[in-house]
């Protein structure tokens, strides 16, 4: 074992230039394998499970719905699934577009649900944290909450008792925060639609500017809130389900929202996200470029894997030929061939580990996670390296002392 390790360290540290080439090649290999695996993973998933789109009044809306499997994790970062993470990245990209405002609210992020007593606890709390709500929140209010939290209406009305006893089919009355008054008007219908659910809300009022409430030591601003008597959309049978609704407001009329969304989905290899104008008119063109994109990337990844594999095996083959005299000398000194071969394998394992680092780093910086299972990545990297090593073993097998001594293997 000591001998194997010595040969390995020798291989690793002498001739750095040559080793750097090997490492670079393997980094490329690993990265390509990563892309390949990631795309393969996406191709297997059916698009309808993950999101759908709906439409409402005078703006754009993207409804991003996640299935139950996907949400077990929402609290548990470690278990976030790949698709969910990529979806997040798509949303992030859309949101960062400077021509759009994106507001989203999630069905289960409700905070004011079920306030039953009129006692305001805030006077007892000394320090107040102000929450910066950049996305739309959807607090569910009880009838008495308006009084308890001193909320004031700038136009329209408060909720009434009837609002809490709606018959099915009646739209859910909602009161909007001040900022949303630039987008919606009293009486506007907000519609939610995905594969399973559809629900309607009607705007019945607007809050005054700078409204908010304090619970314990936290201040929740409501300027971007949609207040409702029940969670919107109403899902009486699937109370655990997670719904995320994205509203995209354009700063000017000539922004092609679908193009922006297509861009984001294509860039991330996500499925097509259909954006519908909220006024009910179907969008002209919903491209499926992202799905195509996934296939093209996958195809390119296969090609480049093959190219990486052949160049890696070429480099290794060349190196083995160069090392043949050294290996003959090892044999002369009583070091058996298997030790030489094992040390090459050990060396490659070190390179594999090193070559994983950039890929993992890139994946983390984009998605905050490694989207492809680690063992799968390592397995494929090992497989590629294993194949690339076959010619090396074949060269080493040729290591013939007789030839060497008769100087037919020369330095």
């Amino acid at each position, binding site marked *: 074992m*000591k001998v194997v390790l010595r040969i390995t360290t020798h291989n690793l540290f*002498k001739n750095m230039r040559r080793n750097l080439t090997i490492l670079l090649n393997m980094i490329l290999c690993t990265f390509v394998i990563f892309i390949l695996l990631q795309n393969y993973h996406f191709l297997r998933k059916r698009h309808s499970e993950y999101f759908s789109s709906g439409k409402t009044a005078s703006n754009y809306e993207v409804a991003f719905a996640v299935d139950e499997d996907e949400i077990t994790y929402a609290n548990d970062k470690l278990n976030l699934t790949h698709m969910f993470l990529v979806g997040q990245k798509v949303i992030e990209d859309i949101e960062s577009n400077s021509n759009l405002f994106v507001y989203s609210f999630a069905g289960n992020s409700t905070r004011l649900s079920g306030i039953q007593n009129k006692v305001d606890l805030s006077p007892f709390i000394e320090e107040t944290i102000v929450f910066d709500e950049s996305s739309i929140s959807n607090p569910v209010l009880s009838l008495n909450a308006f009084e308890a939290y001193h909320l004031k209406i700038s136009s329209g009305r408060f909720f009434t008792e009837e609002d809490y006893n709606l018959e099915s089919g009646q739209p859910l009355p909602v009161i909007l925060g001040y900022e949303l008054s630039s987008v919606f008007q009293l009486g506007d219908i907000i519609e939610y639609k995905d594969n399973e659910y559809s629900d309607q809300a009607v705007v019945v009022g607007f809050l005054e500017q700078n409204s908010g409430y304090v619970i314990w030591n936290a201040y929740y601003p409501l300027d971007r809130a949609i207040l409702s008597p029940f969670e919107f959309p109403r899902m009486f049978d699937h109370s655990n389900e997670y719904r995320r609704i994205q509203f995209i407001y354009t700063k000017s009329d000539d922004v092609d929202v679908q193009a922006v969304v297509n861009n984001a989905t294509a860039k991330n290899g996500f499925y097509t996200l259909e954006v519908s104008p909220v006024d009910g008119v179907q969008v002209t063109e919903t491209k499926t470029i992202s799905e195509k994109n996934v296939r093209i990337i996958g195809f390119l990844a296969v090609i480049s894997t093959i190219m990486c594999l052949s160049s890696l095996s070429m480099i290794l083959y060349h190196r083995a030929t160069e090392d043949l005299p050294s290996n003959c000398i090892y044999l*002369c000194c*009583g*070091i*058996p061939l298997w030790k030489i071969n094992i040390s090459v394998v050990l060396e490659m394992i070190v390179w594999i580990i090193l070559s994983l680092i950039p890929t993992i780093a890139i994946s983390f910086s984009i998605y905050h996670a490694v989207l492809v299972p680690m063992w799968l990545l390592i397995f494929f990297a090992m497989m590629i390296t294993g194949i690339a090593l076959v010619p090396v073993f074949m060269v080493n097998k040729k290591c013939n*002392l*007789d030839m060497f*001594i008769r100087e037919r293997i020369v330095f």
Partner: protein
Amino acid sequence: MPFLELKSINKSFGKADKSVQVLTDLNLVVEKGEQLAIMGKSGCGKTTLLNILAGIDSPDSGEYYLDGKLIQIKSASEGVRFRRNTVGIVLQQFALINDFTAYENIELGLWESGLSKKDMKTQVSNMLEKLGITELKDKYPPTLSGGEKQRVAIGRALVGNPSLLLADEPTGSLDAGTEQHIISLLSELNKESGATLIIVTHDEEVAQKCNRVFHLEKH
């Protein structure tokens, strides 16, 4: 019982019809500690003979006894095992690893000895001293002269205290002055360690330094 004995060794190369008989009914007896020079024309089979002695090649027929044991090498790995700690080899082309220092090249001869790092160090240092190349220990072979390289190679062959030291034209790539030096060094070190030395050479002067000369005839 002699230390080394070859009994009617035959060796040929090539397929049946085009086969070249290189060694025919060769008999050789070498005593322990003896210094034997093997001489003969180019292509007469000196290297072939040395290869058989080193376990690199095996004869077509005949027997090879070393230290009373019948040596039968059936595979390359058996050859490696046989050479380990028994046979030291010095070649005309030095056979040093270029990115090992002189020290590391000599130490290589001890890798399979199972010695501790510390013991290796003392042995290699002793060997460097005996060879008079202590100050060269951190140099790499490409920066050494031919004579210096051959000393390193001798050091590596001898450092593990083999009982049999084989040298195939060890002075073939050296100039006359260096040649004398290397040969004296070889025979001196050999006397000291008590190993048996077999040198292949076509140089009369070299041969005269040895106890005995064995002439190999061409067939």
